[in-house]
């Protein structure tokens, strides 16, 4: 982009003179309803235009990676889902997959299907909440309210399967914790119909809304040549024409047995990204229906690991990845042969989106568009600082 009218950057810091009266520095957050979660934006504006932005993270740092080194492998299993609150199942799956790969533990077929089901459901729930957030950040509280309510129906399903609304602790190393309850199919279909009705309404009220189009079209454009230098992943990259989707490229669980297309956009402005995510929601619903149709209903769902209190995993290291709603989510697990992991590194896709990319994209936008732009990148702070 043309930076000639913005302050010069020296050593990663923008050189602006606050005393000149041309610039105002504003802190958006951490106590600010406009930022997603608990993070802060240090914004410098000139008039209505953002001339510099710095993201401050670390408000949610709990030291997960350190804590995981202190705990047994099985003790980490309830810990990992806390890393990403709106979509915990990806973390559970990845941790389980990494441990299984290092220890050579087999996973029964049926457990893989159940895992895929919960993964898709959590993707759907997370997307619904994102849609509400995107609408809310542009002042469309109605869709925001509807979205959270509809997401709650999905959470009810999770409660029926796993007993937990937010944290499920369902996907354990070796399989899953339980099978589907009685009458789940009918409940699921019921909820999917509700979600579809909501999406139909949202399409009319939001995507066909002139004001929404006016606000989002042309806002925060990601060009294809930005994808690699900024490490952009997931729908943000796909809206710019990339076809990377971990579910398709290196299928995990049973994604290779499902039929779906990678959703690719063209413009990658905020509207196009919203559109892509909206289509991914529809795709999620279709995938859930597919899974329910061809999922095996009999067989083992859990391969018992050896006594988990003395479970020592042979030395090695691995990197496993899965597609979350924000993009590729990865776990890098190093084992040194003891009963505790040597190192667990969690790679959340928001890490690059919220810091390096957002700091770049925000420059030159209108101050009033910042919250909408931020939500349109779909970032969750907890996976940045962990």
């Amino acid at each position, binding site marked *: 982009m043309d930076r000639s009218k913005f302050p010069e950057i020296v050593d990663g810091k923008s050189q602006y003179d606050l005393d000149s009266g041309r610039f105002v520095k504003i802190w958006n957050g951490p106590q600010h*309803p406009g930022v997603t979660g608990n993070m802060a934006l240090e914004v410098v504006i000139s008039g209505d235009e953002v001339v510099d932005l710095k993201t401050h993270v670390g408000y949610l740092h709990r030291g997960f990676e350190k804590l995981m080194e202190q705990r047994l492998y099985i003790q980490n299993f309830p810990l990992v889902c806390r890393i990403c609150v709106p979509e915990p199942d990806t973390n559970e799956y990845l941790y389980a997959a990494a441990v299984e790969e290092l220890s050579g533990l087999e996973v029964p077929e049926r457990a893989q299907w159940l895992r895929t089901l919960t993964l898709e459901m959590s993707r759907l729930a997370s997307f619904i909440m994102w849609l509400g957030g995107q*609408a809310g950040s542009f002042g469309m509280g109605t869709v925001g309210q509807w979205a959270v309510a509809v997401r709650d129906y999905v959470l009810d399903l999770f409660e029926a399967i796993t007993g937990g609304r937010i944290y499920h602790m369902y996907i354990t190393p070796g399989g899953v914790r339980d099978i589907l309850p009685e009458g789940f199919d009918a409940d699921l279909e019921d909820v999917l119909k509700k979600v579809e009705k909501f999406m139909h309404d949202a399409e009319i009220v939001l995507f066909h809304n002139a004001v929404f189009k006016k606000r989002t079209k042309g806002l925060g454009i990601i060009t294809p040549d930005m994808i690699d230098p900024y490490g952009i992943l997931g729908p943000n990259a796909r809206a710019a024409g990339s076809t990377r989707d971990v579910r398709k490229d290196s299928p995990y669980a049973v994604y290779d047995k499902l039929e779906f297309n990678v959703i690719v956009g063209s413009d990658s402005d905020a509207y196009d990204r919203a559109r892509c995510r909206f289509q991914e929601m529809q795709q999620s619903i279709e995938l859930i229906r597919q899974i329910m149709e061809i999922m095996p209903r009999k067989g083992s769902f859990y391969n018992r690991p050896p006594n988990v209190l003395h479970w020592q995993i042979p030395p090695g290291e691995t990197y496993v990845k899965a597609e979350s709603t924000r993009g590729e989510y990865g776990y890098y697990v190093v084992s040194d042969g003891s009963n505790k992991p040597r190192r667990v590194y969690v790679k959340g896709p928001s890490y690059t989106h919220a810091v390096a990319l957002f700091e770049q994209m925000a420059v030159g936008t209108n101050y009033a568009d910042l919250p909408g732009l931020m939500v349109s990148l779909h970032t969750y702070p907890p996976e940045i600082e962990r």
Partner: protein
Amino acid sequence: MYIATKAFYLFVSIIVALVWGLTVNGIVRKIVARVHGRIGPPVWQPFIDIIKSNAKRSMIAHGVMFYFGPVFRFAGGLGTYVFIPAVFGSVVFENLSFSGDLLLVMYFIFFGQLGMALGAGEGGHPASAIAVGRGLAQMTAFELPFALSIISLATQYNTLSITDIVAAQQAGVMSWTVFTNPLATFAALFALLGMNMHSPFDIVIAPQEIPLGPPTEYQGSLLGMLHTNRGIFVSAKLILFMNLYFGGALNLPILMVKTFAIYMLSVVVGVAFPRFRADQSIRFFLGVPTVLGILALLIQ
């Protein structure tokens, strides 16, 4: 004696307007909640909020102008109301309409905002300052179609007195301004959308962007005063529009029905639209509404 009676009547009138304004606010919150799929707060919630705001024990100040902000705002709301005849032909509710005309009322609508701007600027919160800038710019924009509409009305009725304008509309429903001068009415209704600060024109108080806008720093009884003003000012604006465009009211029930119906316009638009940015809303007001206003003026 006359003055004492008059003052008493005025007091009653203000209290009624305040209660009605707050009740409308409560009902609107309830309706919006139902659209959201919620139960919503009780209708009397605005009253509790005001009591609670005044029940705050500690208070902070940012200088003299900080205190004056809500006072000016309240004076603006009060001033708007007392120079409008609330109920046509009623002794109690005619207020001070004999001594003020449309221009004075328009001045008072502006006055409150300016006072608020001064006070909020003193508060020192950058978000307030930004919001004040946006608010004044947007207000100037929607004031234009409104003013054009008022001028059109003045030429139509050949007077600036609100009482006379109401009197001229008493011949029946078809003599209301909305039917005799629809262009001016629509221009003014667009301006009302801006005045009521519902979406899409609520960028001034957008909580996602500049937390709450001008009143960010206000708390305690100052906030209570702002909330009280919100009741009176809503009543005043709605009654003004009812008088100018919808034939006024002959008694309180009609006033309630008509003002509520006018307010519902803002509410319906508000729940169905995201908000405009300040520059976009200014462009909007200077577009269709202004053209409507100019046309109304030309036709007259």
